[in-house]
């Protein structure tokens, strides 16, 4: 709409390039995170963790362990349990992977680039409904879990999947409600505009709406089925939850989906509450003019966002090794009896305060 043919070509190529970069980044996350998730607890418990595997004589802290694991995983035998619903059994990993990739493309990874006579946004998907797109697509992730558990013909899988999906849908409401005050404050659903509105350090979402941040943080852990809410795959009781019967590359697919959605929620938390690609006390957009190179601002902004997201990824692991697992009834009553009322009160209070200031 309203674009010349040249602009269309530039935008299309830019989309492909951005997509290739982000997809490449996302595919690196599970291997690195698997390594981090073994090294960090080792550090916390004063063990060494995996440190042997390396290339020739360079061990680089065992980073190649993940590569070895990946190769091993892919070449393992695939065991399809007897009595499984074959079609659904093979379909479930697909349902688990594609929503994660789709939502990852809606995050603004940096400030807009003004080049080639047009504006190139650094988020790949930018639709009118803003971050409702992320909620909409991530609500599809439930199917991967539900179908995987049901198709495996294993009662632990089924129970794990029902628990996991009930948990995911329960915490979708607090997750949605926690961001309503953000819309009230910044007046937009567009993530990029929300980031631009946080140009001043004290205007970050976490200062303007701390309760929202708390709700979002808790819901974020529960949405991804991570500790302390990892009841779906409570090792002691349910074997491994909904992916008990999955082996080889299909198992890897579930891991990919889980880690990518963790990363996306980390990025979303940094974007909405911690200024996204904004550097505190410094205007990133001016960097292009200061240095004379187009794209410096985008690069710095991108690195800033990645650092913030890395903090949240670290938090995931930190919390996992700090807080013990909840019971299922505690989990559900936390979600339904505390977080939803708190979310509603938060919305009402924010609205009344803003209205009192603006329309008095």
């Amino acid at each position: 709409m309203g674009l010349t043919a040249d602009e269309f070509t530039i935008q299309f190529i830019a989309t492909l390039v951005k997509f290739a970069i982000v997809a490449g980044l996302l595919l690196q996350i599970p291997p690195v995170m698997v390594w981090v998730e073994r090294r960090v607890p080792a550090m916390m418990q004063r063990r060494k963790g995996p440190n042997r595997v390396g290339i020739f004589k360079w061990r680089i802290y065992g980073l190649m362990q993940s590569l070895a694991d990946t190769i091993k995983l892919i070449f393992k035998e695939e065991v399809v349990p007897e009595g499984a619903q074959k079609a659904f059994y093979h379909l479930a990993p697909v349902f688990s992977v594609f929503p994660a990739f789709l939502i990852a493309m809606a995050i603004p990874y940096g400030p807009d680039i003004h080049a080639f006579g047009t504006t190139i946004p650094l988020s790949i998907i930018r639709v009118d409904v803003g971050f409702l797109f992320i909620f909409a697509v991530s609500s599809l992730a439930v199917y991967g879990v539900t179908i995987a558990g049901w198709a495996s013909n294993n009662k632990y899988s089924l129970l794990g999947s029902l628990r996991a999906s009930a948990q995911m849908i329960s915490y979708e409401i607090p997750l949605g409600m926690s961001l309503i005050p953000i819309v009230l404050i910044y007046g937009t659903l567009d993530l990029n505009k929300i980031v631009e509105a946080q140009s001043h350090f004290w205007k970050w979402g976490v200062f303007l709406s701390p309760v929202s941040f708390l709700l979002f943080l808790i819901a974020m852990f529960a949405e991804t089925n991570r500790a302390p809410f990892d009841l779906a795959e409570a090792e002691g009781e349910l074997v491994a939850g909904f992916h008990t019967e999955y082996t080889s590359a299909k198992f890897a697919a579930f891991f990919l989906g889980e880690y990518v959605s963790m990363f996306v929620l980390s990025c979303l938390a940094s974007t909405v509450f911690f200024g996204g690609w904004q550097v505190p006390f410094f205007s990133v957009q001016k960097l292009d003019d200061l240095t004379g190179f187009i794209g410096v601002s985008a690069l710095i902004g991108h690195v800033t966002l990645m650092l913030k997201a890395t903090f949240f990824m670290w938090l995931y692991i930190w919390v996992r090794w700090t807080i013990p697992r909840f019971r299922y009834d505690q989990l559900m009553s936390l979600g339904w009896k505390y977080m939803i009322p708190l979310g509603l009160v938060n919305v009402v209070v924010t609205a009344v305060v803003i209205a009192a200031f603006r329309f008095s």
Partner: protein
Amino acid sequence: MNPYIPVLIVLIFGLTLGAILSGLAAFLGPKNPRPEKIDPYECGVPKVTGANEKMSVKFYLTAILFILFDIETIFLYLWAKAFPQLGWFGVAEVMVFMVILVAGYIYVVKRGALEWD
């Protein structure tokens, strides 16, 4: 450019990647299934009952309440988007909406539909 062209590209990529990961194992890796191996894994104990035991109705009640609160959240998002223009009028409108739904919520809590015993 239509904002849904990237959506289509990513969707196709995601589906392809999922399908590749799901189909990869069929080509790589050995295949020698034995009866013990393809038995559903229950910690080595032979299975007593089938997988499709009847499940607690709680899960269902959770799902039902989720739908209804989900719709409420969507209406709240619409209001939040129009909030700057509507002002106090919008706040009053949503207050009425919310009070009615909170009555339902209180009923659900009082009735014990959210108890997981």
